[in-house]
């Protein structure tokens, strides 16, 4: 079945360092979404990428969608303690009825 994989599973950085999480799908995606889940919270939508090769920025966050629309990445520049949480990528199933989530990358930041 369709799978969405994320690496790394965990990442610890010092405050101010950069962070990147990678997302790979076993199938071509029509689009991809990224969510952030704070500890003890629920997933919150960050962004959606639709076009091949698309790059979007939100302040210190940069999102990329691969040319083949099978992979994506989230890069955080100069991490802050407020960036702590688990970042999930998600792609739609073949029917387009549900998002298939990756297992997430949990980021911890020490000051």
């Amino acid at each position, binding site marked *: 079945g369709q799978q969405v994989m*994320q690496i790394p599973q965990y990442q610890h950085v010092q405050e101010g360092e950069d962070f990147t999480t990678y997302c790979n799908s076993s199938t071509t995606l*029509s*689009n991809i*979404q990224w969510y952030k889940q704070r500890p003890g*919270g*629920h*997933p*919150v*939508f960050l962004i*959606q990428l*639709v076009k091949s090769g698309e790059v979007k920025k939100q302040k210190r966050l940069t999102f990329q969608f691969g040319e083949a629309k099978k992979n994506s990445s989230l890069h955080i520049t100069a991490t802050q303690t407020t960036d702590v949480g688990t970042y*999930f990528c*998600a792609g*739609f*199933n*073949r*029917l*387009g*009825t*549900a*998002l*298939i*989530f*990756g*297992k*997430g990358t949990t980021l911890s930041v020490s000051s």
Partner: protein
Amino acid sequence: GAGVSQSPSNKVTEKGKDVELRCDPISGHTALYWYRQRLGQGLEFLIYFQGNSAPDKSGLPSDRFSAERTGESVSTLTIQRTQQEDSAVYLCASSSTYLAGGPGETQYFGPGTRLLVL
């Protein structure tokens, strides 16, 4: 306006008992989803409702799991004869449009119900 709400927020039950979880979607949202998140794991799709169409039940792990939704209102997820492996956070999400493989629509998540089966 109000977001997605779920109840109860926490549920502790004994193995073998039935539990019912409730989700109130955002008013006007036609699509409703249930997910399961085990401790330290990603989100696992369970079931999807779109209006009065037949639900997509492809993610339900066993016949002990069922869900209902009347129209575009409240949904209930029922787990019969609970097992310890059912312990997880059950998340509900709603969105305003049918996805159909198109550009997609943001899913808004509720706070979840934390289920612990002893």
